[in-house]
């Protein structure tokens, strides 16, 4: 089940040149700063619907700068 792994959005700021498509596709998770660069909500994505949008944003990035990082959930 998805309970084992946490997925979160992450931007590689070295690759990003501020096309800004990502913020149009998932405004729930990404906004743009005053210079057009994405401010990414990096909390784990639980909602499956939101995850689909996140994946579309990743696919749409012309710079391949947006990634979904998968981390094993740290047991509490």
């Amino acid at each position, binding site marked *: 089940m998805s309970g084992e792994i946490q997925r979160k959005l992450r931007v*590689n*700021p*070295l*690759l*990003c*040149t*501020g096309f800004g498509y990502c913020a149009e596709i998932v405004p729930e998770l990404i906004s743009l*700063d*005053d*210079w*057009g*660069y994405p*401010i990414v909500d990096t909390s784990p994505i639980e909602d499956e619907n939101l995850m689909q949008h996140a994946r579309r944003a990743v696919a749409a990035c012309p710079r391949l700068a947006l990634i979904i*990082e998968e981390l094993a959930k740290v047991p509490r």
Partner: protein
Amino acid sequence: MAGPSPAGGYEKLDDHINRLGQRPAGGPWMLDTLAESGLRGRGGAWFPTSRKWSAVAENSDGHAVVVVNGSEGEPLSAKDRVLQTLRPHLVLDGAVLAAETMKADDIVIYLSRAATTTERIIQAAIKERARAGLNEPPIRIEKCAHRYIAGESSAVINRVSGGLAKPMFTLKRAAEKGVNDQPTLVQNAETMAHAAMIARYGSEWYRRLGTDSCPGTGLMTLRGNVKRPGVYEVDMAASLGGVLDATGGTVSPPAGALLGGYFGTWLSPESMQDLPLDAERLKKEFKASFGCGILAVLPDGGCAIVESTRVLTYLAAETAGQCGPCVNGLAALSETMERIAASQPEPDDYQRVTRWIDMVRGRGACHHPDGAVGQLSSALTVFKTHLTSHLEGRRCRGTQVQGFPRPPSPGEGWK
């Protein structure tokens, strides 16, 4: 680490061994000793050294890299240069101990291109060790452009791997995949020297000075409005006031100080006397950082808003130019703060500054933007009352006051 001042330059290998005794060989025992000693990294982050060494040791299969970071791109710092030019063998001892402990087969001394004297002395010290027939992994020197962030850990790895001294974006830790994809330890030169002392005399000896959370001694660079500027080895249990008193005090009544370097924290004059040096207490109780051990004191009439802006403008120019938030954010902040420092703000300039400080934080591949806005933010908070007079357009004589070190011109190139 201190001892008699060596005659004729640096402490030669014979004198070094006569003074401190033979170095024990590194090995797994060293990881326990380091953990017991509580030694923390002196590049500025104060990360527990034993955890760094253990992580590399776990990943090493006989091929790993030890990088001694002696590049010291921080303009206010002189401690690593002083240490490496007076006691090169102590630093090299630490590097060899690290290599033996984590089974590394490559030792790199990472130096700034501007540090020609340091390079000459380290080179001579390496030759001495080879001539003495010490059974050690080979030690080599790699040089980087003299720039502020050339010493950032991922920039070091990039440069030593043959690239530019610019930070990288990576999901892997250096302990797993560092220089040429090998497990890598990047450790500040001073930390290596402490490790070499701890290996000789043990963790109990090390803990005789300092505090529980920050044991031992530390190197400090005193600058600006102090009677005797220079590099000092201090007890980490001391207070800032204690250090100032013991070193002759200030020239004029201090108007404040910058602690920890250009990524550090501005202090009010009232807070300085009783402030601890202990990095943990500073962080938790005072939201301040000892950083790489710098104390730069403002002279009477000096202005932290003005000096903090000069630092910010330098750091904005020292961006690697890779990340949008750093490139755009620091430039915008610098331009706006220059107006505020000159007491000629436009309406909403202060609101812009506070908004941008929050906006750029944590959004670079490295911590350059975070450090730059951190020092600015502390100046704006600590000197809030005085900031008001800048915002209201009242002239500040602090712009004319001499005696606080000015940032240098930005560096050139990245190799």
